[in-house]
């Protein structure tokens, strides 16, 4: 009898354990397939994570906003409204402290610091995981690429849906960073 109850409790635990990753898969898959894709200009650099492997760290340009309101605390959760600028890249148009209702796409960001009319924010996506080995090559080849003249800016493709975001790819010189690394290997 006792075994039965322990097993039922275990079954519930096991369901929760399975639910956690599967819910993550579902939410992000919905964002990828139904969300709007924005291009965020970025610089890829390479660190590592003990559990999740190598990634290129994304250093976004779009992280400063001129604001009129001066009452901003550090590390506060706020909402950034998105639009697309003339060059086709993502642009943050406004920051609100309450969740936007309908219409505009938005992302959930954390405030970094406020100084002299400018609010610095941390974007909620700063990693793009790559195969071990390719991450370092990606950083090296990007550094070489950025030194050349008349380069096209690198950017991350970010799917956005109801505040949830998924980085789907990083584009360097007009092609996915994975292919870019492979092309550089052949050169």
């Amino acid at each position, binding site marked *: 009898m006792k075994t039965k109850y322990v097993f039922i*409790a*275990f079954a519930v635990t096991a369901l929760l354990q*399975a639910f956690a990753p599967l819910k993550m898969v579902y939410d992000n898959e919905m964002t990828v397939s139904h969300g709007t894709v924005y291009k965020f200009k970025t610089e890829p650099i390479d660190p590592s994570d003990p*559990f999740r492997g190598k990634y290129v760290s994304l250093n976004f340009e779009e992280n400063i906003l001129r604001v009129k309101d001066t009452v901003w605390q550090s590390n506060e959760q706020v909402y950034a409204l998105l639009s697309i600028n003339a060059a086709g890249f993502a642009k943050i148009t406004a920051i609100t402290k309450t969740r936007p209702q309908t219409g505009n796409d938005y992302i959930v960001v954390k405030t970094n610091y406020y100084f002299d009319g400018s609010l610095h924010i941390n974007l909620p996506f700063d990693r793009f*995981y790559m195969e071990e080995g390719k991450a370092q090559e990606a950083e090296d080849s990007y550094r070489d690429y950025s030194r050349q003249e008349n380069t096209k800016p690198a950017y991350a493709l970010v799917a956005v849906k109801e505040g949830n975001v*998924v980085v789907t790819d990083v584009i360097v010189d007009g092609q996915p960073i994975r292919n870019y690394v492979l092309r550089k290997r052949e050169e």
Partner: protein
Amino acid sequence: MATLLKDLPELVENNVISPQTATDIERYYAARVNPQTNIMLTIFGVLGGILAGLGIILIFAHNWDNFSKTIKTGLAVLPLFIAQALAGYSILKNKSSVWKETAATLLFFAVGASISLVAQIYNISGDFPAFLTTWILLCLPLVYLLNSNAAAILLLVFSTWYSAVAGYSLWERPYWYLLFIAALLPFYIGHLKTGKNSNLAVVLNWLMPLSLLIAFGAFLKGADGFVVVMYMAFLCLMYNVGSLPFFANLKKQTGYLAFGELGIIIVLLMVSAQYMWLEITGNMQYGIYAVQSHFIIIWAVLLLISAILMFRYKSATFSSLKWATFLFPVLYFIAMVNVPLATILTNLVILAFGILTIRNGINKLHFRTLNFGILVLAVLTTIRFFDTNISFAIRGSLFLIVGIGFFAANYIVIKKKKEQPDTHTHEN
């Protein structure tokens, strides 16, 4: 033993012993042999589980490009389902602790691997404390459902890791840690009740205080110099808990007493220099500053619990170090008004403690106690050596006295021991 078991049928046949006695003897030996082999098997099972689990995580971290997102997602949850099946099977069939411990260890890492890999697939950025929190919460029930010591130790270690990452590198108060510890506490207390000298109890009696000691500081963001005062109260409480008859009379020493004793002495030696009292009270730059009220409340509660323990168990094995509980707050209040006086008194307190410990060591013919007292005096003298405002003559004499004292005290104990040869059991 083997021959005895072989002879049992013959003994029963000839009515030397009853069949009941024969089964009793068989059972006794079976029970006596099993724990040994079981412990070894369990340790190997757990080590295997840890290695396999970490292996899975590392292999996935390589992140193969050739695998599609679907295959990667499948691989992320596959180890989870296998480990869950193993754990479920060992519960249903009520398998041995070897099975349960191994399954719990594997499942623990499989949960971490599945969350990690999904995060990798969708490039989810790291809020590392949040990741650890999810992982720990999903695995806490395993401690009780599989009655797993390995899971308890892993969760304690990971909870401490969480508190350190959140508290020290991100400056967030790691409130989840309180819940994790509260969830593990019944398991720990249960083991202290049933087998207080068991291997697990010994391990947890060191890991638990170490974890608490690390996590305590993670909550003290914004307390500035008062951190030292709060840590002292916490160390005294830990020391007083370790001095309770229950812990003090265990066969093996506990971390409560050891960390408490060492911590109290280290903090006292730290504040034996005047500038430390200036820092703590804020007298250095700002004059005395206001400590946030919630820190004062926690401090008062720590002192109160310490006091209750001390006076409730008066006859227990408390040493002179227990008085630090009250002496330190007094020194702190004096330092608010007069820092030089507090500094002098601190040095006298350490001096008195050193001398009392040495006397205690000589009386009990206990080399460890004796030399701990001498070590405290030696460190105090060394620290004072660097205070330039004491003249060389005084410093030199201090060193000379400590040096001579070291030889004299050890000589006295050796001589006394020779006179009473049966006291060697006290040595350790």
